[in-house]
């Protein structure tokens, strides 16, 4: 099971879902705080769900307020960077570019893609932490190969 956990973790990096910032989180986890990473990630999904809802609601109002949309996405991107959510962060950047060029179609497309990546990441991390709880955490945080 430990091996399965390690493989699952490695694939999150190899497939680009996570970046080095996630490793920084892992390096902060210790025996006194054995669930630190999961706790931070849980807070991220809680915070970011609210931001996604704000963006969703803003995209339902016409004409688009691109400044407001950019502002929300800026916050979302910042949060996503903090846990190393690499693909989600990339989609956020793309969305912001569309905001800056006032491209409504682009914003809508980018937001759909972002929600897909976000949902995938959430599913993968939930599965990872569920297995980690059964297995016990990996001993050391290692840089992705």
């Amino acid at each position, binding site marked *: 099971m430990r091996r399965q956990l390690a493989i699952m973790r490695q694939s999150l990096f190899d497939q680009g879902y996570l970046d080095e*910032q996630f490793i*920084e*989180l892992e*390096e*902060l986890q*210790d*025996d*006194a*705080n054995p669930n*630190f990473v999961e*706790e*931070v990630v849980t*807070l*991220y999904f*809680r*915070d970011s769900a609210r931001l996604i809802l704000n963006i969703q609601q803003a995209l339902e109002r016409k004409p688009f307020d691109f400044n407001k949309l950019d502002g929300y996405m*800026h*916050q979302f*991107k*910042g*949060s996503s*960077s*903090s*846990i190393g959510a690499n693909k989600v962060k990339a989609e956020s950047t793309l969305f912001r570019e569309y905001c800056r060029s006032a491209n409504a179609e682009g914003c809508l497309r980018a937001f759909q893609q972002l929600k897909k990546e976000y949902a995938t990441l959430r599913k993968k991390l939930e599965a990872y932490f569920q297995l980690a709880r059964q297995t016990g955490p990996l001993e050391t945080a290692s840089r992705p190969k």
Partner: protein
Amino acid sequence: MMLGNCATSSSLSTTSDEDIVNNNLTALVVDDSPMIRKLHDMHLKKFGLKVQVAENGKNAIDLFRCGASFNLILMDKEMPIMDGAEATRELRTMGVTSMIVGVTSLDSIFDRQAFMEAGLDHCFTKPLTTENINFLLQELNKNNEEN
């Protein structure tokens, strides 16, 4: 000044001189994001600092008005009730000489410059990295030696 407790770390087997120095350092994390507060709290505790958190600039000001003091303040920019720039200006007006470090996701140079001009000592992009914290602790320890 609040005394610090040495945070345990599984990566350290002995207490270094640096840990002893950092033991006396206190920090205040000011951010409206619970995730960022938790992250920076843990990060600083790993380095041996004693940490408190505040949800916005007004709460940070209130702590100082109640007599608290900190060597280091990590200040977010965008917060409800009172933002980081306003809180920083107010703290400096109150005569607070703590190291105040902006930690922001602002990407406009203009916005960051405006934040610095509020009275920051440094400004970093969120989230803080180990390198950032090492740098800040070196600066803090340098300041302590000079005083």
